C-alpha cells in the first residue's frame, strides 16, 4: 500500500511538536525585544541567555563562546572568512580543507582564493574519510586555518575530528568544523576534541529553518559580521531570532536526550536498507559502511540517472535526494561522489536516503518494496544499461 515516507532528513527535518510548543509563545506573548528594559524584554533576554547556556552545555563550551546565526552557511562563512582575514594581517594566507566539504565552505574558500589566499584541498579517498596525517603534512608556516566537516552531508561519513583537532593544536593552527550534519546525531565536546570553531544549524535537528550557531573558542579574535547594535556581543548585530533560538536549544535537548537509543534503532534501519538495496545488481554503497551517520544511506545504481529515480520515488510517496539538494539545480554530478573517485556516469545514478527519529522500520519495508521495481523500469528504458549488459556478455 502506498504511504508517504519523508526520507530526506539531511536536507531538512520537520519541526518537532515539543520544539514548536516551546517556541510559539515567543511570537505572541513573550514577543519582547531582548534589548528592551521592561519585563517582556527581560523575559526574552532571559530565554535567549538560557538557550545560549544550554546550547553551549551540549557542546562542552561556555555560553559566551556561542554566537547565534541565521544557520549553518552563515556560520561557515563567518568563521572561515573571518579567521582568514584576521590572520592574513599576520601573513598567514593558507587554508586547509577537504575536497568534499559543503558548498558553504568550498565556495567560501574559492572566494578567498580569488582574494589571494592559498587553499589545499585534501583527498577524501574511496571511503570518504580524510586522513589526519594528510592534514599534518599540509600544514605550513603560513597556515591560518584547517576546516574539515564533522560528517559529510551526502554520504554521511564521519571524519576523525579529534585526531585532526590534536594535530592542529600541536601546530598552533586554528581548527574549524562544519558540524551541521553531526550536531544532534553525535555527541560532541569541543574542548576534548580541540575544536576552535564549529558551525551548526537548527533545521537539521527538528528546529525551524533560519537559526544556527557558531561556536568560537574564547580568546580567538573573530572580526564582527554585522555592524549595528550590541547583540551577540556586538559581533552580529540585529534583533535576535528569539523563538528560533529557543527552538534550537529545545531541539538539542530532544536530540541528545535519547541519542544512543535512537542511533541504535537508526543504524539497524540503515543497515537493513543497505543490505536490501545491495541485492539490486550493479549497485554500490558510497562511503564507509561503519563510520557514517546513523540515518545515512547513499548508493549508486548503474545505468540510471538520479533525478528520474527521485521523481519516480516521489510518485510512490518517497521524498529522497540525489547528491545534495543544492546540487540539483546544476547538471554536474555531485562533487562529493567525484571526490570519492566515482566516474561521472556512475555518480549520476546516486540516491541518498536520510532517516530521522520520525522514520520507522515500515518505511524501510516500503522503500525496499518500491525501489527495485523503479530501478529496473528505468534500466529497461536506458540505452546505457543496454551498453553495460552488452559489455558484460
Amino acid at each position: 500500500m502506498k504511504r508517504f515516507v519523508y526520507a530526506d532528513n539531511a536536507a531538512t527535518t520537520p519541526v518537532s511538536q515539543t520544539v514548536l510548543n516551546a517556541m510559539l509563545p515567543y511570537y505572541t506573548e513573550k514577543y519582547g525585544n531582548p534589548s528592551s528594559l521592561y519585563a517582556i524584554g527581560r523575559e526574552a533576554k532571559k530565554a535567549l541567555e538560557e538557550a545560549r547556556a544550554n546550547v553551549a552545555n551540549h557542546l562542552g563550551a561556555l555560553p559566551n563562546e556561542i554566537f547565534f546565526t541565521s544557520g549553518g552557511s552563515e556560520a561557515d562563512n563567518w568563521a572561515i572568512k573571518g579567521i582568514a582575514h584576521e590572520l592574513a594581517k599576520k601573513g598567514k594566507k593558507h587554508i586547509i580543507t577537504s575536497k568534499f566539504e559543503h558548498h558553504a565552505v568550498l565556495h567560501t574558500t574559492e572566494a578567498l582564493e580569488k582574494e589571494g589566499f592559498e587553499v589545499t584541498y585534501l583527498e577524501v579517498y574511496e571511503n570518504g574519510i580524510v586522513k589526519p596525517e594528510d592534514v599534518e603534512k599540509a600544514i605550513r608556516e603560513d597556515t591560518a586555518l584547517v576546516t574539515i566537516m564533522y560528517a559529510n552531508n551526502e554520504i554521511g561519513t564521519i571524519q576523525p575530528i579529534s585526531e585532526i583537532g590534536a594535530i592542529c593544536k600541536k601546530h598552533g593552527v586554528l581548527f574549524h568544523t562544519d558540524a551541521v550534519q553531526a550536531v544532534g546525531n553525535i555527541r560532541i565536546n569541543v574542548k576534548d576534541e580541540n575544536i576552535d570553531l564549529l558551525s551548526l544549524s537548527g533545521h537539521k535537528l527538528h528546529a525551524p529553518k533560519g537559526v544556527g550557531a557558531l561556536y568560537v573558542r574564547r580568546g580567538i579574535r573573530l572580526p564582527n559580521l554585522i555592524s549595528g547594535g550590541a547583540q551577540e556581543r556586538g559581533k552580529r548585530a540585529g534583533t535576535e531570532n528569539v523563538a528560533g533560538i529557543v527552538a534550537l536549544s529545545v531541539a538539542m535537548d530532544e536530540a541528545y536526550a535519547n541519542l544512543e537509543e535512537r542511533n541504535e534503532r537508526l543504524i539497524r534501519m540503515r543497515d537493513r536498507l543497505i543490505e536490501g538495496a545491495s541485492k539490486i545488481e550493479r549497485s554500490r554503497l558510497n562511503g564507509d559502511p561503519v563510520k557514517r551517520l546513523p540515518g545515512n544511506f547513499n548508493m549508486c545504481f548503474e545505468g540510471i540517472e538520479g533525478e528520474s529515480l527521485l521523481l519516480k520515488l516521489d510518485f510512490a510517496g518517497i521524498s529522497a535526494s540525489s547528491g545534495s539538494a543544492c546540487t540539483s539545480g546544476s547538471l554536474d554530478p555531485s562533487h562529493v561522489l567525484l571526490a570519492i573517485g566515482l566516474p561521472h556516469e556512475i555518480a549520476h545514478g546516486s540516491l541518498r536516503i536520510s532517516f530521522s527519529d520520525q522514520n520507522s522500520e515500515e518505511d524501510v519495508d516500503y522503500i525496499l518494496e518500491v525501489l527495485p521495481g523503479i530501478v529496473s523500469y528505468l534500466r529497461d528504458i536506458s540505452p546505457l544499461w543496454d551498453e553495460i549488459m552488452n559489455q558484460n556478455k
Partner: protein
Amino acid sequence: MAYSERVMDHFANPRNVGELAEANGIGEVGNSKCGDIMRMYIKVEDNVITDVTFKTFGCGAAIATSSMATELIKGKTIDEALKLTNAAVMEALDGLPPVKVHCSVLAEQAIKAAVADYYTRQGIDPTPIVGKIEDCDHHDHCGCGEH
C-alpha cells in the same frame, strides 16, 4: 526548478518507449558522462516515419523530451521530421527549466541521427541532407552553454 504538467505527464507516462524491432534507422546522441543518452528508433516507409520509439538514460526532462519528440514526428515525412526544432519540442511541453534546455536539443539531434542512419543504410550519404549532428560531448566543450 519546476517541471510543467506536460513534462511530468510525459515523464510519468512516456509514449513510444522501448525498442523497435522493425526499425530501419537508429540514432543515438549524448553520452553517459554528461548524464544523458537518447536512442531513437525509426521505421521509414515511402519517406514517411510510420513508427518511432526511444530509449533514454537521463533526467526527467530527457525522458519527457524524447517522448514528446517521438509523438511530434510519428506519421510525418522525413523532411517534416528534420524541420522539428528543439524550440518546438519545448513549446509542446509547455517549456523547460533553463538548465534543461539542452535535453530538447538532444531530442532534436536524436531524430537527425536516426534519419542519418536510415540514409546510410540506404546507401545515401546523409550529411548533405541531415547536416552535422551535435553530439553533446562533455561539459567543457559541448558548447550548449548549460554547464
